């Protein structure tokens, strides 16, 4: 069922970032233009400031029970400082479309990016953070993230690879929680059965790599996919870390016939499970 939905949902991308667009151009399979033309293209204004896009100013936070919210943080990503926006906003929009088909979720239809040091972050108890391998949070962002998680927020981390990026992420998350351990989330954890029954942790490749025949991005180091977590004092999971894997690309490129279905399926299953779990535990 999930596979059918994933391949059948063809979504008009709004503003894919430049790198992703380049990758798409390199790997565009025959017939994809036709597919793109057939799909309804929904154009929506973007709302930006120097630190990144924000919620539609005409949209009142709280109108919808759920907002898929991307964490905006500072980084030195290739000199642009926009590591948070990888796959944004197409990945977010496409994820929401499929997620709403799979889960009975009354969600806001559009992307929602919020800075970690913005007080409004507390109104969105689940946030999504990508590419933390280049993150370099400011002190106010560290404070904001700590307050968010301590209050009961839940963070999904995704799309960073290899030892260097891990160290960078770990350095930053240690600034948030110096004393909290980062532990493996084994397959007996309820997050793997919150919605779908997931029996193995799969490495989800970025689209660039799978086109070249790789799944791992870190070809020179050990690169097993790992799911780790950070728990609060009461044993409640508050951060789930998808390391050496890229769920976001699978959500973003699920409609691309060249992107293997099994990865998209797994990514959406994992995404649904993380959302259902985060909204009930």
């Amino acid at each position, binding site marked *: 069922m999930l596979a059918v939905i994933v391949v059948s949902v063809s979504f008009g991308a709004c503003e894919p970032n430049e790198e992703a667009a380049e990758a798409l151009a390199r790997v565009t399979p025959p017939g994809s233009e036709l597919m793109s033309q057939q799909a309804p293209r929904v154009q929506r204004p973007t709302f930006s400031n120097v630190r990144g896009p924000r919620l539609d100013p005409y949209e009142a936070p709280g109108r919808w*029970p759920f907002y898929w919210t991307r964490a905006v943080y500072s980084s030195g990503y290739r000199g642009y400082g926009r590591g948070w926006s990888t796959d944004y906003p197409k990945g977010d929009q496409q994820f929401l479309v499929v997620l709403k088909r799979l889960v*009975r979720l009354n969600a806001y239809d559009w992307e929602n990016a919020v800075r970690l040091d913005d007080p409004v972050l507390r109104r969105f108890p689940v946030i999504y953070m990508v590419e933390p391998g280049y993150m370099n949070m400011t002190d106010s962002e560290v404070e904001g993230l700590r307050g968010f998680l301590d*209050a009961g927020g839940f963070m999904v981390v995704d799309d960073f690879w290899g030892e260097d990026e891990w160290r960078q992420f770990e350095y930053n998350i240690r600034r948030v929680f110096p004393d909290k351990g980062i532990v493996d989330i084994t397959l007996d954890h309820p997050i793997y059965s919150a919605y779908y029954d997931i029996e193995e942790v799969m490495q989800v490749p970025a689209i660039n790599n799978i086109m070249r025949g790789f799944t791992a991005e870190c070809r020179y180091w050990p690169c097993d996919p790992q799911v780790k977590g950070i728990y609060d004092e*009461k044993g*409640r999971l508050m951060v789930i870390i998808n390391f050496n894997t890229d769920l976001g690309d699978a959500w973003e490129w699920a409609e691309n016939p060249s992107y293997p279905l099994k990865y998209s399926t797994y990514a959406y299953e994992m995404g649904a499970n993380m959302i259902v779990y985060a909204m009930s535990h």
Partner: protein
Amino acid sequence: MERIFEFLFKYRPLVFEQGEFGFAAPGSVRLWLAVAGLVGAAAVASYTIARGKSTVPDRGVMAGLRVALFALLFVCLLQPALTLSTVVPQQNFVGVLIDDSQSMLLAGEDGAPRTAFLQEAFTSESELLTELSDRFALRFFRFSDVAARIDGADELSFDGTHTNLAAALDAAREELSGVPLSGLIMVTDGAHNSDRPLTEALVPLQAAGVPVFTIGLGEEAITPDIEIGRVEMPRAVLEGSALIVDVVVSQTGFGGRAVPIIVEDEQQILTEQIVDLGPDGEPVVARIHLDLEGDGPRRLHFRIPVQPGERVERNNARDVQIEVRGEREKILYLEGEPRFELKFMRRAVAEDENIQLVILQRTAEGKYLRLEISDSTELEFGFPTSREELYRYRSLVLGSVEASFFTHDQLQMIADFVSHRGGGLLMLGGRSSFAEGGWTGTPVEEVMPVVLGEPAGGDDGFFAEVAVRPTPAGLTHAAVQLGLDADAVSTHWDSLPAVTIVNPISEVRPGGTVLLSGSSPDLSEDQVVMAFQRYGRGKSIAMTVQDTWLWQMIPPLEDQSHETFWKQVLRWLIDGVPESVQVITEQEQVEPGESVRLVATVGDSTYIEVNDASVTASITSPSGLIEDVAVEWSVERDGEYAVEFRPSELGAYEVEVTAERDGMPLGSDLTYLHTAPSDEEHFGASRHTQTLRRIAEETGGQYYTPDNIETLPEDITITGAGVTLVEQMPLWDMPIIFLLMLTLMGAEWGFRRMRGLV
């Protein structure tokens, strides 16, 4: 005043009240009227014919005065009289009921106890007793909680710990039912501290025509004094619940003062709170917050230290029994979609050992996430489809789930869950809740405390961000208390962030009470945020906010408002929810040897009353002796079983009732009873004039105080029942008539002098 009346009218007012007015002169009234007319006409004619200096008006005045004089004289000739029945001396009985309870020993302002009156009035040498004995055969009774015959007032001991006026009247009436009874004299302070209503005793007396003459002793207000009037507290509470106890404190002579109320149990002082006593003579309610740890029966002692000069010291303390229940109670929370409200409510009560919040969350059509279930079969097929399955839960929380999710039977089942099973129902705000969820017109709508109108229109529906504040009712309600006093509660709510509502509700049903309301500059009227009502045996709560989790996410971490709120609300939701088998004792505390009634209600797993169950009470005394007593169906009500027993030891009795039918267990329940000497006579110990007046008036008797007791024997003679004879009491020689005649004659003479007609 009564003496002046008697001087002018010859008899006391009571005689006029009881007697029937008439004329005793022989002959026809018409004949007498004709004669009177002729005499009157002659008088008028004599003034009409006469001439001289008088004018026509002069002659009119004088004729009128003369006619009035003749009329008065004429009335006397008719021999006016009162006809009334009086009891025949020494052929009738009078019962004298004397209060033998401890309160009779209380000293008055002059230092003399109330019993001093008895020694004056009811000893063999007393004038009152002599007069009564001359007219009636007297029978004496002593009474406190029970009544008994005695030979005289010298047998009284004044050691009764309760006063039951109704039982005393019943006993005397029954004892004297075979003899001609003129009336009952009841000597008491009127403090009736039994549960039995007085009306039950007064109706048979009215039917038998037996008047009761009450003599009230003691002062109407004992000053200065402080009394703990009553302590309002549930008989059972879930362990760890925030308990709010109302203590009614009354006082005279201590107005404007502040005194401490100390609450302690067997081991320690639990809390101490200062209460302002307010204006002199006006009772105040002190609201005390208690946290009771540890399950089992607890005996709480509420006391106010004795203040200098207090007249009664033993009414400054009260003991109250409470059972702290340690069970883990199940609440079913059905959520129609993944929502943060569920996550944060779960977190709020996760560490509450007494609440098991079972989650059934619809994640897709026909797909559910189940959490906190007891076993893998629980809610295996979704929401319960039978009453037996649903009634296992004590309360039900409905999240954002549309009414069409349920079958009609399930909707009816939810309504019955509240009205019949006695469960608690809480509906949360959301896109699929209330009218927006299609609940209007369903059986559940009737249960809800709020009025559901038409669903909010428009593409986007209704949406409002509101600031939540407690209503006056909410300020004092335990469920929404976020501070220790009303000011703190209000301030605390003001500090919480605004939340959102998508269900516009501004009206509650007639039985509903609003505890929280929401306001917004964008709205013309306040929205109902939280309201509740009792419905049948249970209660329903409407909570229209869809994101109370903002109270957790936004305030500082140390703020526990969200946790406290939901813990209190969910505990309130399950508070008082009955089991299928329940037992209570009609009194919380009795004295050793005093009878206590044990009442059990028995139902099956669907809470349908069962009348053919085998019910046994296992009573464990403080020393460990166990006695099994069969509890029989009371016949008065379906499913009600009752038995009386008399505890003989001092201390705590444990009573466990088990019920079974056809060898299958229906359930069991536990309750506790404390036996101890009672101080009840020292509470409300002033004279209860209203009660005593009521007894007298409803039975045709009279109310007296020691100051006006001397007319009692004659009053009984006039108004009493029994063997009577008809007596005529002439009125023509009343002094008032002679005075009137003199006045009329003097008026005519004076008029003539004034007009120069003499």
